[in-house]
């Protein structure tokens, strides 16, 4: 599914990724401890920013645009937060500076000049930002604005918790182990984490009056300057431009899905036995049994159809058979091919990291679905960005399902970017001609 097809005008808050994936094992090993001075510094800065933002809010409300000086401070704060997030989440390697200078860090933000903002949006900014902040908390944003209190044995404790976000945190934990082993951050995890940080920065920029443009959850737009990963054998296809939703089916969406959920459950029970049988076949023969492969493929495709319906990625009510080509969001699954026996033997253990990423993405997917539900009910169409995030999440889950159920031994790719097809071999083409 090419979500890059329908390009929208670029968001004024842009993430710049100039990271080469190389990491220093030593600094990664001590990353959290090394970041302590930075965390203290951002806590102090956050306290100051609270006053800056309040003053800026009044200025923007009265004058119709932020005060240039206050805007500059806010931008520096935002940029510094992004640098720190990138450092903590292992999205970048170098130790960040303390000033939030533009262009000094591999993961950076391009921020707009102060411009006119709609007054009603300024007035209601805190409430309008809530959905974006909720999604950001699922993905990886919300750094030191998450400054809050918690009650423990020692009374009220204040903490600038640094960064939060299920997706970025999961990628960071997995990336930590990968870097210690290989000295490089896996590109999929880096991209996913960078996306989460970028969305968090946009949400915060909106809240802190840097721009009145709402955050854009579209992963392709967020990482449009980043190299696409190689095309995965399991991928989504469909018409990305169709955002129309029927309000009635949106309203009853969860209930309408009940028969599908029951059917999915029953089919799932049979599929478990089919997968176990296929595991033995693949382990001994090296290739999955064609019949079992076809049966499981249908189940995995059906799962995608049902999830796409439930999570408001697609509009129509899906069929019950998992047939190819009948649903607007569909899955391409390879024919049974030879698989590495080691990978087959330890498939469940190997899939564990992918399960974690899938669970983190699933949390964001749930948030996105709830937000999409309200928007689709009001507008009769899904928001482009949220729909694309959800499609990314479903694509990853489908790849995990395909990996676990032995449809392929290609490991799921966590990058939010869709894979690029292999470059055509001109010589081979010419020879064939």
């Amino acid at each position, binding site marked *: 599914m090419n979500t890059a097809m329908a390009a929208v005008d670029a968001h004024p808050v842009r993430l710049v990724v100039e990271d080469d994936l190389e990491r220093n094992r030593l600094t990664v090993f001590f990353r959290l401890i090394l970041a302590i001075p930075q965390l203290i510094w951002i806590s102090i800065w956050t306290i100051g920013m609270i006053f800056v933002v309040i003053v800026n809010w009044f200025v923007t409300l009265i004058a119709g645009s932020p005060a240039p000086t206050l805007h500059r401070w806010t931008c520096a704060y935002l940029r510094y937060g992004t640098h720190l997030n990138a450092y903590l989440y292992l999205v970048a390697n170098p130790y960040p500076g303390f000033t939030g200078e533009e262009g000094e860090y591999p993961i950076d933000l391009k921020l707009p000049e102060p411009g006119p903002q709609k007054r009603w949006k300024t007035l209601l900014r805190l409430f309008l930002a809530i959905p974006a902040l909720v999604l950001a908390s699922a993905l990886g944003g919300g750094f030191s604005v998450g400054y809050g209190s918690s009650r423990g044995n020692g009374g009220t404790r204040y903490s600038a918790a640094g960064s939060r976000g299920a997706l970025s945190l999961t990628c960071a934990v997995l990336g930590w182990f990968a870097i210690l082993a290989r000295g490089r951050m896996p590109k999929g995890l880096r991209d996913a984490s960078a996306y989460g940080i970028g969305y968090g920065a946009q949400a915060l920029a909106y809240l802190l009056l840097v721009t009145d443009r709402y955050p854009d959850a579209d992963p392709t737009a967020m990482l449009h300057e980043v190299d696409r990963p190689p095309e995965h054998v399991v991928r989504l296809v469909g018409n990305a431009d169709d955002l129309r939703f*029927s309000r*009635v*089916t949106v*309203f*009853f969406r*969860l*209930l*309408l899905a*009940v*028969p599908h959920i*029951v059917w999915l459950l029953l089919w799932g029970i049979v599929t478990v036995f089919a997968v176990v049988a296929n595991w033995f076949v693949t382990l001994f023969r090296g290739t999955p049994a064609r019949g079992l492969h076809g049966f499981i493929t249908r189940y995995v495709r059906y799962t995608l159809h049902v999830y796409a319906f439930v999570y408001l990625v697609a*509009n*129509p*009510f*899906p*069929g*019950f*058979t998992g047939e190819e080509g*009948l*649903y*607007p969001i569909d899955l391409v699954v390879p024919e049974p091919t030879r698989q590495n026996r080691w990978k087959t033997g330890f498939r469940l253990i190997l899939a564990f990291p992918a399960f974690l990423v899938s669970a983190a993405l699933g949390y964001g997917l749930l948030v996105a679905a709830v937000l999409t539900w309200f928007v689709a009910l009001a507008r009769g169409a899904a928001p482009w960005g949220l729909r694309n995030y959800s499609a990314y999440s479903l694509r990853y889950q489908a790849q995990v399902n395909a990996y676990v159920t032995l449809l392929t031994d290609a490991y799921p790719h966590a990058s939010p970017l869709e894979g690029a097809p292999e470059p055509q071999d001109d010589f081979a083409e010419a020879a064939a001609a």
Partner: protein
Amino acid sequence: MSRRLPLLAVLAAAWAVAVWLLWRSSLPAYHLRPLDPRTLFSPQVLHRADDYSDGARLLWLGNVVAELVVLGVYAIYGIRFARESAAGPIGTGMLLGMLGFGLVWAAQLPVGVLSVWWRHRYGLDGSYVQATIGNWLALAGAFLFLSFALAIVMGLARRIGRWWWLAAAPFFIGLAILFAFVTPWLLGGRAYHAPYVQRLERVEHVQHVPVRVLDGFDEPNAFATGLGVSRRVFLWRPIVVPPFTPRMDEFVLAHELGHLAHNHIWKSLAWYALFAFPGAYLIALATRRRGGMGVPEAVPLAIFVLVVLQLLQLPLQNVISRHLEAEADWSALRATHDPAAGRQLFELFGSETLEDPSPPWWDYVLLENHPTLLQRIEMTQYYRTYAAAQSP
């Protein structure tokens, strides 16, 4: 047509014989001078019951009108939602069926909320959460059953054409039997122990029937269900606590055991079977112009016809239900020999549930699936005469 007449006549005769067999009961024929409710209930109770019932009837009418209007409009325009489906004919039919009932739910929601408000106004219990979110969850169950039913009906219609109803009716009868058998095990509840349980079971010849109490209900009520080994009697908690006395509970239990003793569950299923065949045939007939039940276009019309048929058969269904309930009352009187407890129980129902002791005729025809409180008290009076005549 003339060749079919003998067949139709035979079927009608068989149907009539089945009705006659099912109608037979142990209920004596009696006729008493109608009682005056003012002699049994205080003016205050009568006034409150009258006022409350007027509102409740209006709300019922509102519900029915909402349902008919929504499904009527849906029967005409509902097919437009077929474009929201990529599920093939049967899946699309399921979607259309679910949407139809979803829209009915939405239309009835204000009436449901008003009903709770009306009950609160008269000091009766009722939950807004149940009327809104609770019903939403119940709708999920309804959608599931509806999808299953439509998958069966449409599958049969696509396979065997216009005669689908002949195969579908037995299937749904089988399903009803299965539900009746399984339901008691799904309901749970806690065991109810009283000194009179075993005696009543012995008298009613229905031994080893567990009696269970269900929490979470606001009204005093009870019911018997199950077939064979799954037979159970369920008492809703309010009926086993004051102001209901143990004597009244004994009467209630005897009434429910009476249902089981006279095979009322089986009889109800048999009645259902008698209506299932003509009902399914009428749906098949009504949807023929839309291409029959094998195509999704027929589904919105089919559910409208189904609801209209259910409404039309309501008076008949109530006649049958009242007949079975009266027999269970009579059975309770014979088992307990305590008409005074029965009378007190029915009088208490009047003040506790604000049930109208003598509703207007149309209410009696359309809404009352039990004999009226007055009729039930009349029966306890008749039993006194009957018992006096029987004693040596």
